[in-house]
């Protein structure tokens, strides 16, 4: 009888721990839309244990455009959908915590990564699109290869966005003056090398 009770408690614990995976953070999403771009990247996101869809959309539009052009969730979502960076089928809501796979898929599309056989064969059909997107980003060393269904911390999102931006600069996806540190040293008139 006692063992049955223990088993029941264990079952409840397992259901509570694994069955409820949907997280909603409306206040955090609201705050993420209000802060300025610098504070958003360097202060706000760094504090978040998980990122909402609203915050991820803002970071992704910043990555794609290079600046914080849009001022609302609706306009950012429209931009990302128009360019095929995210999918309608995912049914992502503004206040929901976003998974790593969705972010990875958007980043892969923004970076115009062609991908491997699995990503093209299964990913483009929508079967395992986010799963293989994480693998593609792990291959180019932008993201760590951890499960695509896991939530993403704000600090991790900033790391991914920063790495992706470096990839874009390296691949010439946007024109930019490249600063070389050694040139800064040798070009200085008072430098003594």
């Amino acid at each position: 009888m006692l063992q049955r009770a223990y088993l029941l408690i264990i079952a409840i614990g397992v259901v509570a721990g694994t069955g409820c995976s949907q997280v909603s953070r409306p206040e955090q999403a609201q705050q993420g839309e209000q802060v300025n771009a610098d504070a958003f990247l360097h202060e706000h996101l760094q504090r978040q244990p998980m990122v909402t869809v609203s915050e991820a959309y803002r970071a992704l539009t910043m990555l794609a455009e290079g600046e914080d052009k849009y001022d609302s969730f609706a306009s950012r979502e429209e931009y990302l959908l128009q360019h095929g960076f995210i999918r309608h089928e995912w049914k992502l809501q503004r206040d929901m915590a976003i998974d790593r796979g969705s972010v990875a898929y958007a980043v892969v599309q923004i970076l115009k990564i062609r991908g491997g056989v699995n990503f093209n064969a299964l990913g483009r059909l929508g079967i395992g699109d986010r799963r293989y997107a994480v693998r593609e980003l792990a291959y180019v060393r932008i993201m760590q290869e951890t499960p695509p269904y896991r939530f993403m911390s704000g600090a991790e999102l900033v790391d991914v966005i920063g790495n992706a931006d470096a990839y874009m600069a390296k691949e010439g996806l946007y024109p930019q003056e490249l600063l070389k540190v050694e040139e800064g040293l040798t070009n200085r008139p008072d430098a003594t090398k």
Partner: protein
Amino acid sequence: MRIASPLLVVLIASVTLIAQGPATQPADDAVPPVTQPAGAEAMQATIIKIVGNVVCALPGPDGKPGEFKPAKVGDKLPAGAMIQTRLRSSVMLAFGDDAVVLVDRVTLASIDQFHRTADTKKVQLGLGHGLIRGATVETTLRSDMTISSPVATLSKRGTIDFGMRYEPGTGRYTVFLNQEGLVEALDHLANLRRNVQPGQYVTQALARWIETLTMDRYVSVTDAWGTTSAEQSWSAHFGGSGTGVVDPGGGSTLYTASFNASDGFTPSSLTTVPPIPPTLPPAGEGTLRVVRPEGNFGTGFGAAH
């Protein structure tokens, strides 16, 4: 079982609580005021180049950073200043006439110390996240520069193009040295240190360079004896790039094309190389001599034999 069951319950309850709780603690906004050692002459860094949007916060009278304002070339940054760069942005700072630092994209950095004593110039930079690169030349003044992150510290010794990238989201970091000199990486968690020579880098794995190198370089493992001439040519030309023959010994088709001005390229001949048979070819009067009944391992069938 009676002892194990309560333990299981406690374990599962703990896991549930951990899964639902915050993964990281909110960062503390309080930044300790910067102090310079007594007798040291305080110095200021100068912004010499900016790309994109960069903001800086200068320290107030209490030593704590003030409000962030857009940075411009020529601005002076004393110890205690903080720097933030956005996407597609970077800033180059001069620390005197012998040291230059580049704060790369999406980086939060701080100048923790910058002063000069009798014969030493000390520069200590903080790295919240992102990438800092640096270069120094040796002058009569001994230059002591370190870049500190929460998990590791870079300490340089007369170097050009060294740097550190830190990702707080995953705890990963890379300390590298591209050109010349010597850099020392100190890992606070493992309490280990690694020397980094020119052209090398070290990550949070703290692997020795020879171990890191084997992970970065593609090594072709194609068996030259079991491949055809065409496959060997392919491996010789493209093997180093990571591409390779999918099915060595599986046969191939060779196309050759001749060129003339009127017709352009036209295939003039076509040769098909059959797959290597799973057994050795007939010997003598046509009897099949099977040396290894379990199959062909390719030995002796390529152009190398």
